[in-house]
């Protein structure tokens, strides 16, 4: 069953990539625009670190590592689990029926149907920046840290997938949730900094709304260990908990889905 699902997923994604290859001008334009945006985001950090050697207790490459971990998690979710984000449209318009009548899990079908090119490009850029940060921090010789960074990426992906799925599922009961998701996702760009430089209320806010578990806590634990043991070690647990909760909500939402659409 799993190999069949993976086969269907692979075929769908291959078709999508072929489609991108056919629209070369669009692809080049997207590449250029995302590259400019990425360069400007890096430039901001570069300028900030031209004034200070460290942000709080953190070096430039450590901050880059935190930033990339959060962003990669976001774009892995967007590229490979896009149903989490897209399902709010399907719930809202009553279009989930098309997927429900097919003999495959809805989550897999719909996630395989789309693979935003923008997300792939961002994964390449931020993946490269992540690798450079690992090299510059000389972490490649520390397998324990590398392993924990992989766990950090998984935690980040699970947290973002969980948040996106939860927001999408709420559509079934409250109608439009587009603004909620757009607001959450736009904060992605502001949570790249080390949380411990923020005042306590802001730290608490970014811990309760669990952005801190996508960037700072798991990476800080990987790099510094003990000081950040509690929140860092539990990052994956927080991600799993949030994803599990969102999946239960998804099942509950499917039961309440009326096929008529919630909106117009």
């Amino acid at each position, binding site marked *: 069953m799993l190999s069949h699902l993976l086969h269907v997923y692979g075929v769908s994604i291959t078709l999508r990539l072929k489609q991108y290859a056919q629209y070369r001008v669009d692809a080049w334009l*997207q590449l250029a*625009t*995302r590259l*400019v*945006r990425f360069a400007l985001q890096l430039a*901001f950090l570069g*300028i900030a670190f031209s004034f200070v050697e*460290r942000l709080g207790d953190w070096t430039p490459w450590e901050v880059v590592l935190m930033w990339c971990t959060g962003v990669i998690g976001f774009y892995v979710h967007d590229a490979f689990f896009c149903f989490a984000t897209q399902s709010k449209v399907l719930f809202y318009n009553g279009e989930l029926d098309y997927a429900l009548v097919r003999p495959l899990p809805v989550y897999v079908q719909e996630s395989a149907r789309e693979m935003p090119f*923008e997300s792939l490009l961002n994964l390449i850029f931020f993946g490269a920046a992540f690798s450079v940060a690992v090299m510059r921090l000389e972490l490649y010789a520390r397998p324990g840290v590398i392993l924990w960074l992989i766990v950090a990426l998984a935690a980040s992906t699970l947290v973002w997938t969980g948040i996106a799925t939860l927001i999408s599922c709420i559509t079934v009961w409250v109608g439009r949730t587009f603004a909620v998701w757009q607001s959450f996702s736009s*904060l992605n760009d502001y949570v790249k900094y080390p949380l411990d430089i923020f005042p306590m209320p802001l730290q608490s806010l970014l811990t309760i709304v669990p952005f801190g578990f996508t960037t700072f806590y798991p990476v800080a634990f990987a790099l510094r260990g003990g000081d950040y043991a509690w929140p860092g070690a539990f990052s994956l647990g927080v991600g799993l908990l949030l994803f599990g909760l969102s999946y239960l909500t998804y099942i509950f939402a499917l039961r309440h889905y009326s096929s008529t659409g919630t909106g117009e």
Partner: protein
Amino acid sequence: MSRLRDTSLPYWGAVTAFLKVGLAMRFNFFMSLLVTLVASWVLVSVWKVIHGGSGTVQSAFGEQELVTYLVVAQVVNLARMGWINRNVVYNAMNYVQTGKISLDLVRPLDLQAMRYMEWAAVFVVDALLVAVPVWLVWFVSGNLALPASAVDGALFVVSVALAWFVMSGIHFLMALLTVWTYDFLGLMMVRTAIQEFFGGTLIPLALLPAPLAVLAAFLPFQAVVHTPVSIYLGRLHGQELIFALGVQAVWGIALLLAGRWLWGRAALRLEVQGG
């Protein structure tokens, strides 16, 4: 006189309609308000750390002045990633991409004027439901300075209105570019990134490295954020002040004319069945 009234009446009708739509979608603005508050809080916290550790930054700004700069820059950030703001601009681009613009073409209104009116309505609602509340929260928290003087406060309002004029020109050009590119998401994202970087929203322009500061001075984005904020802080006086306001007006007119010219070209290439 009555001819002017007859001509302008449909535009006011459009503005009123857009205002009503905006005000009806208060929840979206509420989310935008929350995001702007958190974003400004994060930026202020980061810059406070940088300010504390850098003599260069301290010599350019006092701490409260820097905080005021960053918050007011967020308040007047017309490239804000708020839902309505995004949605309205996306709509303008999407109409070109999908061919829905054909309906706009048969209306008895000038397309460019209608778009400017639409964005004026968004601007007013955004100011009432996002910008002013953000300013108030920061002011009540005691971190924000008032405008340097009553005159600076009044000129700040004039400058923000000119910033809307410039911003509408940028929006319109971006929407028209979709006729050639079809990809509007990338254009929007890169415009926002460039605008926030070179407009002074994330980094005060006084702190940009010299080559980038020169480049910023030749781009229209500084007229949207940097100029109103500088006036608010009382950093512009006399001829400098008049020049800055003049630059805003010139950018607004230049973008309006460029939009007019480009629309003439784009209309010939328009595929009303969509792309």
